[in-house]
C-alpha cells in the first residue's frame, strides 16, 4: 500500500516535471512563431505600413494547435505501441512525426498569411521561413515529447482509464490554454511593444506599431524567443507543471480518503490558496504601482 503510494508520488513528480518543461517549450515555440493572440499585431503591422521580419505562423490558436500536436503524437505513439514497438522508441517516433506535421503547418501558415498581405508590400522572407521553422520545430518536439510521455505515464503507471490519444487531446488543449493565457501578454505587450510606456497597457492608437529593429540590425523571431525564455516561458511552464502536478497529487494521495471526498477537499483548499496568492499580488500591485493619472475621457 505504502509502496504503491510512494510509486504514485514518484510518477506524479515526474509528470509534473515533464509538464513544466512542456509548458516552457510550448510558450517559447508559439512566441517565436507569433502564434496565438499576439499574432494579430504581426498581421496588423504591415497594414499600418510597418513591414517587418517577424515569423507569422497562424496555424490556429494555441489550444487547438497543441490539441492536435499532442493528440497526434499520442495517437502515433499508441499505434507504434500496438505494433509491439518498445515504448520509449514509440514515444520518440510518434513525437517526431507529429513535429513533421507541425513544421509543414508552420510553413504553409507563414506563406499563406504573408502572400495575402501582398497589397501592403509585405514580402515573403525565405530565410525567415528556413531558420524560424526549424527552431519552432525543435521547441515543439520538446513540448510534444514531454507531454506525450506524461500522458503515457498517467495511463500506464497511474492507471487512468483514458487511452493515450484521448489523454493527448485533453492535456494538449489544457497545455495550449495554460501556455497562451500566461505567456501571450508577456510577448504581446512586453516584447512587441517595448517602445511603449512600461507598466501600462498599449494604447489602442499604437496598435500595429510593433518593434521591428533589434539591438543590431532588424529583429526576427529568434530575438523574441530568448526574450520569452526569460519569463513568459518559465512562467507558463510552472503554470502547466503545477496544474498537472497538483491535479495528480490530490488524486493519488487523497483519492481513498473519505470515499472520494478527500481529493475534493484538497482541491478546494488548493484553489483557495491560489486565490489568496492572487489577491495578495493584486493588492501589492495596487499599492506599489500607484494609480495612474485619471484619464480625462474614457469613451472607449
Amino acid at each position: 500500500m505504502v509502496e504503491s503510494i510512494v510509486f504514485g508520488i514518484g510518477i506524479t513528480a515526474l509528470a509534473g516535471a515533464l509538464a513544466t518543461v512542456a509548458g516552457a517549450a510550448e510558450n517559447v515555440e508559439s512566441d517565436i512563431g507569433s502564434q496565438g493572440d499576439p499574432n494579430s499585431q504581426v498581421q496588423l503591422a504591415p497594414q499600418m505600413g510597418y513591414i517587418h521580419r517577424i515569423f507569422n505562423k497562424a496555424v490556429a490558436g494555441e489550444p487547438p494547435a497543441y490539441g492536435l500536436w499532442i493528440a497526434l503524437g499520442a495517437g502515433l505513439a499508441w499505434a507504434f505501441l500496438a505494433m509491439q514497438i518498445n515504448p520509449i522508441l514509440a514515444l520518440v517516433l510518434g513525437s517526431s512525426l507529429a513535429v513533421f506535421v507541425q513544421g509543414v503547418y508552420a510553413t504553409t501558415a507563414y506563406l499563406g498569411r504573408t502572400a495575402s498581405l501582398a497589397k501592403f508590400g509585405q514580402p515573403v522572407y525565405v530565410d525567415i521561413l528556413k531558420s524560424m521553422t526549424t527552431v519552432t520545430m525543435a521547441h515543439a518536439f520538446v513540448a510534444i515529447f514531454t507531454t506525450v510521455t506524461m500522458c503515457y505515464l498517467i495511463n500506464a503507471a497511474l492507471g487512468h482509464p483514458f487511452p493515450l490519444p484521448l489523454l493527448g487531446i485533453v492535456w494538449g488543449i489544457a497545455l495550449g490554454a495554460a501556455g497562451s493565457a500566461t505567456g501571450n501578454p508577456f510577448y504581446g505587450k512586453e516584447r512587441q511593444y517595448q517602445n511603449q510606456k512600461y507598466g501600462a497597457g498599449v494604447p489602442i492608437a499604437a496598435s500595429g506599431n510593433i518593434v521591428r529593429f533589434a539591438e543590431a540590425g532588424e529583429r526576427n523571431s529568434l530575438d523574441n524567443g530568448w526574450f520569452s525564455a526569460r519569463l513568459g516561458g518559465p512562467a507558463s511552464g510552472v503554470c502547466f507543471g503545477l496544474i498537472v502536478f497538483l491535479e495528480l497529487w490530490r488524486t493519488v494521495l487523497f483519492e481513498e480518503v473519505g470515499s472520494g471526498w478527500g481529493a475534493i477537499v484538497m482541491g478546494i483548499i488548493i484553489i483557495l490558496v491560489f486565490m489568496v496568492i492572487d489577491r495578495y499580488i493584486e493588492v501589492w500591485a495596487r499599492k506599489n504601482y500607484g494609480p495612474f493619472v485619471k484619464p480625462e475621457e474614457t469613451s472607449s
Partner: protein
Amino acid sequence: MTVKVEKIEGGIPHNTIMVAGLIASVILIYLTYANVLTGTAYFSFFGGLATVAALVWGSHAIKHLCSYGIGTGVPSAGMIAFGSGVIAMLFATKYGVAAPIVAVIVAAILGAIFGYLANNVLSMRIPVMIISLIELSVIGALTLMGYAAMMTGSFNLTALTTGSIAILGMSLPSYYVSFIGGALIATVFMLGAIAIQHPFNACLGPNWTQDRMLTLAAECGFLSMIVAAIMSMALIPMGAALISLFVAVIGWYYTYAKYIELSRRDAAAWLDSKPIPDVEGQ
C-alpha cells in the same frame, strides 16, 4: 483575430464546390466498400481521398461563413463542425452499408438545429449561418468516416470497435486495439478539426485567392492522410497501409509544391536574407 476579412468574389462558386465535395467524398467512402467485396484492405486509401475532398469543400465552407465575422476565432468553426460531426458519424456506423448516407442526413439535421440556435436563439443573424453549419457538420461526419474507413478498411461499428493483437505469433481478437477502443478517433478528430480551418485561417487577408486556399486545403488533407496512414499500420495489413501512405505522400508533395508556387505568385516579393524594404513613400 480582429483582422478584417474582406469579401472577395470570383473563382469557382461555392455551390459548385459544395456539390462536388459532397458527391466526391460520399462516392470515395463507398469505394472503400470494395474491401468488403474483395475481402482485402487494399482499397482503404479511398477513405483518405474522401477526407481530402471533404476538407477542400470544408475550407471553402468556413471561408463562406467566416467572411461575415462571427465574433470569435476561425478555429471555433472547425471545432463545432467536428463536435457535431463525430456524434453523427458514430451513430451512422450502426447502419452498415448505408452508413455514409445516414451520416450525411443525421449531421445535416444536427447542423440545421445548431444553425437555428445560433442564428435565432442567440440572435447572431448571419444569413449563411444555418446552411454553413449544416455543411460543416456534414463535412465533419464525412471526414471522420473517411479516416475511419481508411484506418480500419471499413465503416461499420463492429470493424471500428474490434481489432486483433498478436501475442507470441498468435492473432487474438481485442477491443482495445481498435479504432475506437484505442481512441484513435480522438487523434483524427483533431487532425480534421485543424485541417479544415487552417486553409482559411492561413490565407485570410486582403489578397486572399481561391485557388491558393483550395490547394492548401488539399495539402492539409494529404498531410493528415500521411500520418493517418502511419497510424493505420496498427489496424490493417501493412501492404494496405503502405498503399495509403504512398498515395498520401505523392498527393502531399504535389499539392505542397503547387502551394508554394502559388504563394510565390501572390506574394509581394520573394526575398532571401534581405532587409526590410524601404517604403517611406507610402
